[in-house]
């Protein structure tokens, strides 16, 4: 028998394979579409070859399946693997949207770094099995579910209307018209935008990451601060206070 987490590992592996084989193809398929659809026509953004359609539906299925996997599994490692799977599939979708660099980044940052962090924390918690579903307040959750459906319905209607907008390839609408079709979404272009128009954002992110790192260290280290307790809070912290340091 393959252990249950094994399935997820296999799924994640499939995701990785998917990326490596499909991503170049996805980009190629997307580029092979007609360069400029007639204005006003409900033309696809990506051309309308069968390959693109197939690719999209496979990826959509993979994404949704991975996400559903995350929120249904009791095993946390399995959840993480589902998330990795989703992220891989989403990365390919990025590539279909000419965001090649971000596809790579998605794989590196999300599927790589963040997921490792999650697994790491699961190890710290030492509890691969999750508590079951949160089933208190079912009425409230049912109402929230209905609200969500309504929300989705309204949103879906609007989003579906977007396809009636005249779609344009990257070359046409870009400011100044300097970008060639092939440049859109490339590393060079992302770099150019990031270091010109968005240089401030880039700098600000540095500050945010710094505060996140410092904060994470401050919060997560078991320190002298934990020895003090408010009298109001009742009993002192249990033995677990000296949890093994990661």
């Amino acid at each position, binding site marked *: 028998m393959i252990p249950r987490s094994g399935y997820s590992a296999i799924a994640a592996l499939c995701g990785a394979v998917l990326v490596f084989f499909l991503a170049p193809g996805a980009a190629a398929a997307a580029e092979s579409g007609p360069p400029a659809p007639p204005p006003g026509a409900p033309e696809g953004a990506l051309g309308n070859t069968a390959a693109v359609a197939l690719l999209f539906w496979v990826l959509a299925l993979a994404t949704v399946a991975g996400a559903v996997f995350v929120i249904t599994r009791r095993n946390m490692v399995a959840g993480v693997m589902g998330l990795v799977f989703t992220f891989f599939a989403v990365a390919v979708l990025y590539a279909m949207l000419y965001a090649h660099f971000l596809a790579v980044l998605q794989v590196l940052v999300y599927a790589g770094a963040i997921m490792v962090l999650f697994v790491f924390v699961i190890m710290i918690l030492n509890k691969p099995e999750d508590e079951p579903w949160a089933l*208190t*307040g079912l009425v*409230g959750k049912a109402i929230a579910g209905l*609200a*969500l459906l*309504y929300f989705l319905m*309204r949103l879906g*209607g609007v989003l579906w209307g977007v396809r009636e907008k005249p779609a344009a390839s990257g070359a046409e609408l870009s400011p100044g018209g300097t970008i060639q079709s092939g440049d859109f979404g490339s590393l060079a272009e992302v770099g150019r935008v990031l270091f010109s128009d968005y240089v401030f954002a880039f700098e600000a992110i540095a500050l945010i990451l710094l505060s996140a790192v410092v904060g994470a260290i401050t919060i997560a280290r078991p320190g002298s601060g934990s020895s003090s307790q408010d009298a109001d809070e009742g009993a002192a912290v249990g033995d677990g206070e000296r949890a093994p340091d990661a």
Partner: protein
Amino acid sequence: MDATQPPIYLIILLPLLGAVVNLVVGRKLSRRFVSVVGVGSVAASLAVTVSIIAGPLWAQYTAAQAGEAASPWLQQTLYTWIETGDLRIELAFRLDTLSALMALIVTFVGFLIHVYSVGYMHDEPRYAAYFGYLNLFTASMLVLVLGENLPVMFIGWEAVGLCSYLLIGFWFEKEKNADAGRKAFVVNRIGDFAFILGMCLLFYATGTLSFADFQGPEAQRNLLEIFMWGEPVATWAGILLFIGACGKTAQIPLYVWLPDAMAGPTPVSAIIHGATMVTAGVYMVARMSYMYASSTTAMAIVAGIGAVTALFSAIIALAQSDLKKVLAYSTVSQLGFMVTAVGVGAYVAGIFHLLTHAFFKAGLFLCAGSIIHAMSGSGDIMKMGGLRKRLPLTHISFLAFCLAIAGIFPFSGFFSKDEILVGALTADADGWWMYYGEFLWLLLTLAAACTAFYIFRVYFLVFSGESRADAATQAHIHESPPLVTLPLLVLAACTAVLGFVGIPKLGFLQDIGVGNAISAWLDSSVRSGIVPMEITDGGKLRVMGLVLVVAISAVLTARALYARGVSPRLEAWTSRGPWARVHKVVSDKFYVDELYELIVLRPFRALARGLFVFVDRFVIDTVFVAGPAKVVDLVGAAVRKVQNGQVQRYLAAILVGSAAIFFLASRPAISFEHEQVEPYEVTFEAMVDAGPASVDAEIEWDFLGDGEADATGPEVSHRFSRSGEHEVTMRFRDGVFGRWRSVSRTIEVAAQEESQGAGARDRGAERGSRQ
């Protein structure tokens, strides 16, 4: 600040400094020093007031009388408080004839009460705090009185509320006192809410909040010409401000705090009831007379509430057995008189009564303090009696105050009350009901009768007959020290003679040069909004005579019933009922008493009890106190249910909230109106609520009932081929979400011209029926 201007701000600053000294360092100072600071600051303020009035203001006044200067008032601007856009509010004080009179009352009566307090509170451990609060209270009231615009007045307005809260709850060790303080504050806040709204509305309408500007033609025009909901804006502002006044001046239904406010030290009751806080509402209405004159509706409401309050609380006062309670309800009743006066436009009469009332009511309370002090702290009038000889000075002054409040000639209350009655009887304005003035007069006359009765009931029960107190208390009875009795005598002397500043304007008196001094003094500051009906000297004298006769007979009845304690027959009546004693009643020569008891007093007592039960227990306790508590409980329970500590429930609430936002924003109510313009031709207009979804909406009309769109656009007209009923459908596609919704209605199409009216009526009827 003009250097030559008289220092009006000193009038306020001096008591304020006294308050600061007493509150901050008072605990470390000796009692003597605290007293000197407390009393001295008010005395100095009084001196400044008098000197300014006698000096510069008098000069201005006489100049204006002679036609030389335009404005008989002094104004002092300390600095511009707020200036932003068109909102400009200055921290300015205005001393005109009206505010000068008020300032004089506040400082003079306040001074006497301070002196009295030195004697009365000599055993108080928190002596310095008491004087600090008392000074602060005086200073706040002076801000209220002298403020040149509504926001400055509102500072004083709020501050007296706060100080009264501190003073009423001064002996906070008793839970009841703290509750009373809170009640006073809360009820006042209900009024303040309306006051703030009224200020906002006035500012919106006139662009100013300064009293001087309200008199200007521009503000007057705006007040009359800007309409809201079919009334000039002056009406709404007037009503809102008056609700504020109801809170301060204890009018129905916000009077409840005042009787409870007895819980504080007695001098506090005197200062609150007599000279200061409660008169604020009357003063405000008089101050805003230029605005109230623009709205006869608001004036009718003010006058009506005042008259009903006057009678209603006088009736309640009939049945009270606690000395201070009687006086408290009496205050409410007298305030009702004043409010009626300012409501019918007899501002001078209202302020005049305010003046006389300040003296006799402060005096009554100070006497009550002296009496209660003598009776070892008990205020139950059923347990008193025979104090005439034991407390001679208190007795003399109390009698003077009683005669004044009962309206017996020549004490001051007679003159002022009479002016109000004449004012009410002769008031008539556009839009008032017929005989409204006469109705008000009737209520007030009844109230005057009750007043004379209840106050002399108290007088006889306290001072005449035999003492009904227990031995220990009797042994303790003694006259109060001079510091206590001296203010009483001063007040009594004033009460006896003060009425003559307001001698009624009678032809034969004016012929010999006797005029109404107070009316001449105040005329430049207030504006009579309603032109009174002409009344002859004879008519005036008849009104006077009638009320005098009524008052005297009420006094005599009280004497008959209570002169030797509660009349035993009365007790028999009340304890055993009429039928057991029929024989005795018939043979009794004083059967009038019993008849009076049966016909008048009993029903009135029942009425008083009933009113009390209804207003205090039901309206206030249930609706104002328990009702909100219930709502708060329910909401609290709901919040507690949702806020149960589980973060996922919070997240669910976010989700539900966002769906609700989408729902509200995407669902404008739709309907349409139609009107027949020609035979067979009907115009239609779509009515769609505002919202994001209705901007780029498409609207289609189906007149034939075939499901096809016959016309598009929000306003269309259609020519029907035949008369009779038609089913019309309006379809609406919202501009954001693209949903179609429709509303259908059957309309009647007529062939003739004359059915236009029917069409219009149809439109009115169907406006409410939205899908």
